[in-house]
């Protein structure tokens, strides 16, 4: 799922300065799963901000409300009435949710409280690894299921660069494994080294333009 990380509190506080009544909208989807913006995190952030507000001047106040998901408009149904009492929205959803909220409530300022990091997997409680950059042209089939775009620091498509350290680590850090070293090891184990023997042609980058995805069975509905 989409993994995100809460912004530093100073940055959040700075972005909402000047607004008296703020509503912090949490997201029950990806933000909850990666423990960055669910109901519990909304309450925690509100407690911190209200404490800071009180210490300052006491004119600002923040309340919380968590909805199922912020990436689908139908989950916003009870917000318009609630928002009558607020002059600004702080959203703990990923970038997509913040944008939808800003679109639906176009007359109210919407501020993000989290930085969307990546599409990733869960390693352990609170630890998440980036795995996918949504390039739109998945090549995982020939790289033993290891993404060269995401995991290789240089997004190489043809084998490791000359910087692989002893122990198979990427040149930029001793803690990051070299993706191509791992691809080689795994393909060797599965006897599929031929996949990377041939030269992979240049990538036709699909993610340079905003994409609207319409699934095949629904193409007729939208006149395609």
């Amino acid at each position, binding site marked *: 799922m989409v993994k995100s990380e809460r912004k530093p509190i100073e940055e959040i506080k700075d972005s909402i300065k000047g607004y008296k009544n703020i509503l912090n909208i949490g997201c029950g989807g990806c933000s909850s799963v990666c423990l960055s913006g669910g109901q519990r995190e909304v309450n925690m952030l509100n407690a911190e901000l209200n404490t800071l507000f009180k210490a300052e001047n006491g004119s600002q106040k923040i309340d919380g409300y968590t909805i199922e998901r912020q990436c689908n408009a139908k989950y916003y149904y009870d917000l318009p009435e609630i928002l009558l009492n607020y002059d600004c929205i702080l959203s703990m959803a990923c970038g997509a949710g913040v944008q939808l909220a800003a679109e639906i409530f176009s007359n109210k300022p919407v501020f993000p409280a989290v930085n969307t990091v990546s599409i990733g997997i869960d390693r352990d409680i609170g630890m998440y690894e980036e795995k996918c950059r949504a390039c739109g042209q998945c090549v995982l089939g020939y790289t033993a299921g290891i993404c060269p775009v995401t995991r290789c620091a240089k997004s190489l498509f043809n*084998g490791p660069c*000359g910087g692989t350290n002893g122990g198979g680590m990427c040149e930029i850090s001793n803690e990051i494994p070299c993706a191509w070293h791992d691809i080689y090891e795994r393909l060797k184990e599965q006897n599929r080294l031929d996949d990377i023997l041939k030269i992979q042609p240049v990538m036709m980058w699909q993610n340079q333009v905003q994409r609207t995805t319409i699934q095949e069975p629904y193409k007729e509905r939208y006149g395609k």
Partner: protein
Amino acid sequence: MKSGSNLEKVLEAGHFAFTGEVGPPRGSNVEAVKKKARYLKGMVDMVNITDNQTAMVRMSSWAASLFVMQEDLEPNFQMVCRDRNRLAMQADILGAYAHGIRNILCLSGDHQKFGDHPYAKGVFDIDSIQLVALIKKMRDEGKFLGGADIDTPPKLFIGAAANPFGDPFEWRVHRLAKKVEAGADFIQTQCIYNMKKMREWIHQANDMGLTEKTYILAGVTPMKSLGMARYMKSSVPGMDVPDEIINRLKGAEKKKQAAEGIKMACEQIEEFKEMKGVAGVHLMAIEWEHKVPEIAEQAKVLPRPVMN
């Protein structure tokens, strides 16, 4: 003749090639480039001009190459995949060729994290092997990557880099094969200290017939001091410095360490002259260009052949 460059002529004639390297200045200082080039004049067949090496911004490789040509030295224009997309690459290739540059080296480039702009966006639109194939397509088919015809195709001598030592070791020679298949005319390796592994790698390359399809130039960097040896062993990515090197330098007095380093480099060059599959040596005397004449003399690679 694919390009008619001096290096190509030297290699085709069967001579043992000797090339050097120059790093452009961290500014627009023309004299700095020319001064370095003057040290190498007559000492080498061709000189590499690095491209924002270790991701530190310097005068661009093609610009410095032009100044080097003014000093009657043949440049090897380096292009890294980190800084340009495929459009800019093709455009720069055309411009460089139009100005008289005849050699090009295709590299991935050190990651931007190492340099003075660590949060810059690394382009990496295509990788080094795809770049080699791109230039070959421009030269031999006369077409851009997108397929359209080129008005006066660039005839460049295409080079690629090879690192015989990175992990996984068994895969390195296959990567070399891919570069050769993509169209690399010559290969320059990273600086070699582990001669044992180098012999093994060359042996594998010979077995695969790669040394008949491409010219391999072995990289040599003389150690200036024990400190440099230790630094290269621990902090430079992809470097394999065996303990014998460290010990030999330890054995020498501090003032004599540089001379010992040069002596070791010359011993390597002697072995490379005899090694099957090695067509020449690429000397990387980083920030030590004034020593190149002395090293060339000691390595007995002078005089350099003059090709017409």
